[in-house]
């Protein structure tokens, strides 16, 4: 923000704000937010899954009746699909240079994230409510 005599930057750089995508640092920031969230969430899920690795269905179903595991699983699903959506977007934008193909690939990833993430979240909820 400094625009003292020492700075080579013109104030326009800040004032025009959000850049060509009109999102500013939103993508970068949410990648960090979900990354930080995923450190404890992924570790907790990993421990839970390692414990359930050889378990039968009844044991797994009972484990997800625990609200602590259910909420950790839900948050992990949300954070992981959000995070991988942002990450795959960058990969696609780096390597796919044909505009049409790029847009189709980005759409496909976005739709897949909602569908698969939705299935995962619904599965956790169904297990939790025991329906």
């Amino acid at each position: 923000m400094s625009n003292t005599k020492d700075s080579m930057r013109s104030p326009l750089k800040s004032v025009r704000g959000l850049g060509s995508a009109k999102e500013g640092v939103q993508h970068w920031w949410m990648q960090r937010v979900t990354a930080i969230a995923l450190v404890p969430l992924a570790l907790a899920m990993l421990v839970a899954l390692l414990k359930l690795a050889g378990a039968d269905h009844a044991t797994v179903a009972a484990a997800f009746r625990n609200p602590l595991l259910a909420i950790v699983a839900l948050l992990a699903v949300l954070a992981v699909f959000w995070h991988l959506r942002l990450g795959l977007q960058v990969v696609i934008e780096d390597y796919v240079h044909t505009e049409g193909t790029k847009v189709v690939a980005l759409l496909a990833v976005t739709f897949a994230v909602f569908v698969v993430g939705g299935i995962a979240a619904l599965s956790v909820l169904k297990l939790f409510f025991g329906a």
Partner: protein
Amino acid sequence: MANVERPLSPHLQIYRWPVTMATSILHRATGIGLSAGTLLLAWWLLAAAAGPDYYAFVQMVLGSWFGRLVLFGFTWALFYHMLSGIRHLVWDTGRGFTLPVANRSSWLVIGGSVLLTVIAWILAYAWN
């Protein structure tokens, strides 16, 4: 388009890979791998929600030698991407960019991810 033979920067294969180059591309590779692996997690959750029969089928697939191999790779990718991601978060604060530190943190990420993967699988067998 000019037909002049312009000088090109050397191709990737020309370089002797510094370890930081490997850790950089591995972060992206494990990210893509984990994205695919997340499909397995969703599949497993769906199976658990679907009921005992389908769950038994999925457990059989994931518990086979090939399934275990994939899950072992998934575990390593998870630890690698997590440690490498923490390294990125440290970089976000403006620290850790000098060559000796970057080289050391590269090896720390590689070694740490292998160690944590082995520990996780020892626990998995000990708990089951």
